[in-house]
């Protein structure tokens, strides 16, 4: 294989000439096809060094009203190169100190208990969308909900193998022994839109596509049931269909189905519409349902809050 000259690379970064073989590998990193494992040592060459900036520790003392901070003045000057960085750090500082003052200190005994261990009643699977945090919309307080957030609040099947979502499921159900799992979909979901926009023949290197295909059954059901609707309406239909689909996928986990069958674990679906500010919630009726592949199970305890 001919060794290319560094000038043939179009990446925006510069590299040492004497690591040409390494930089050859890095050209594939920026291309569409990445070979797993190549990253390990190459990016160490790309990145000659990194450093973590000085760590600012924010503490809350018991002295009212100001909260003390420990700062190393000599390092403070090197902390921020630009005003923007300073602004963001200041922002984070104020955010944390507000929490510290209004929640942590006011409920010290409770937080001390929580520090010893958590026993949340809920596991929530919600979208990463900035507008749908379950702590905001459903008011979960510290200690109440073990939360997974991913693109389009999808739950892969047991058969699809290890993933971050089912690692969290395993922890929540088998270690924390939560009593409820709630999967929350939402309006105008970009991930669902990407799913609905997928073409069957499309060969894409996009991560988004590789992930949202988890919800492909929901897309197919939507296409067959709602093909006469506009694309936006189909997406809305799929947002809810995907929640039903994720709930079915939950039952592919043997240790989840066992607990649901014994009445130790309840599985719920939810849908948050942030346009109208409404919330729908339903519970899987495991006993009432006759589970068949690609068909919906029975539901009970449906609520609509507006």
């Amino acid at each position, binding site marked *: 294989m001919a060794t290319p000259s560094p000038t043939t690379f179009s990446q925006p*970064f510069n*590299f*040492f000439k*004497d690591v040409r073989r390494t930089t050859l590998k890095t050209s594939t*990193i920026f291309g569409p096809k*990445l070979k*797993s494992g190549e*990253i390990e040592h190459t*990016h160490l060459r*790309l*990145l*000659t060094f990194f450093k*973590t900036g000085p*760590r*600012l*520790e*924010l*503490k809350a003392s018991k002295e009212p009203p100001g909260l003390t901070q420990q700062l190393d003045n000599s390092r403070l000057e090197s902390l921020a190169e630009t005003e923007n*960085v300073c602004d*963001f*750090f200041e922002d*984070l500082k104020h*955010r*944390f100190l*507000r*929490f510290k003052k209004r*929640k942590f200190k006011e409920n010290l005994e*409770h937080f001390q208990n*929580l*520090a010893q261990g958590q026993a949340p*009643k*809920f596991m929530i699977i919600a979208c*990463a*969308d*900035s*507008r749908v*945090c379950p702590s*905001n919309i*459903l*008011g*979960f*307080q*510290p200690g109440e909900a073990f*939360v997974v957030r*991913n693109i389009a609040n999808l739950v892969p099947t047991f058969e699809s193998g*290890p*993933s971050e*979502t*089912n*690692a969290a*499921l395993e*922890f*929540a159900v088998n270690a924390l022994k939560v009593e409820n799992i709630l999967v929350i979909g939402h309006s105008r979901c*970009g*991930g669902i839109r990407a799913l609905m926009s997928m073409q069957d023949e499309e060969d894409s290197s996009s991560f988004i596509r*590789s992930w949202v295909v988890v919800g492909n059954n929901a897309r197919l059901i939507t296409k067959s049931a709602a093909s006469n609707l506009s694309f936006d309406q189909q997406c809305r239909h799929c947002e809810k269909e995907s929640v039903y689909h994720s709930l079915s996928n939950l039952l592919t986990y043997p240790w989840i189905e066992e607990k649901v069958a014994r009445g130790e674990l309840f599985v719920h679906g*939810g849908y948050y519409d*942030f346009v109208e500010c409404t919330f729908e*919630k339903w519970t899987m009726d495991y006993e009432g349902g006759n589970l068949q592949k690609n068909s919906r199970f029975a539901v009970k305890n449906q609520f609509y*809050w507006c």
Partner: protein
Amino acid sequence: MAKQSLEVAAELQGTDLVGFDHHVQKDPVQMITEGFRYFKTNKFDKNPELFNCLAHDQWPQFLVFACSDSRVCPSHILNFQPGDAFMVRNIANMVPPFDQLRYSGVGAAIEYAIKALEVPNILVIGHSRCGGIKRLMSHPEDGSAPYDFIDEWVKIGKPAKAKVIAKFGHLPFETQCEHCEKESVDLSLMNLLSYPYVQKAVASKRLRLMGGYYNFVNGTFERWEFECHFSPHLPA
């Protein structure tokens, strides 16, 4: 309109999230019913301009990686309001290296946040007494039975574990875990750079990487910036 909405969002930050009524053991459905009612009455209905804007679009300033632990929601500890932060939550707040086959979930979130939303900051937040980190540090040496999915996931943090054991292996296990909780944040920040669009955005200064550590035992929050320097090109 966007500027006005940001001002309203700033006002929202001054309000309490929800009435903190943890003492009463509530029925789960009652919990979320009351939670939603509070949100609708005290946040949504009182800030129609902001939520009208958010209904059409989102422009979060942060992509946040936080642990799924019920005690560490960034919306509480950093008071993120609707629209502030695109948020991924997983066991031990890990960012795996680029791998489209194995880690498409996290990759999808990064791809969407950087390419579609163009967030200017990524913040990875670790925390004290993290069960995922404890599992990483203890298994399989403790001889316990495997948790199939958890163990497969937390082994992303093995380089952090190795570093901690090498440097702090003489310290008590709990102290090693605390070091690993922070080392794992730095590892995740490093792994972010294995995503080409992240590296490109960082190099062109459109994106900043930050680490954070929330210690709920002593009520502290550390944060730091992850600075990257790339090799200069040697003259011919």
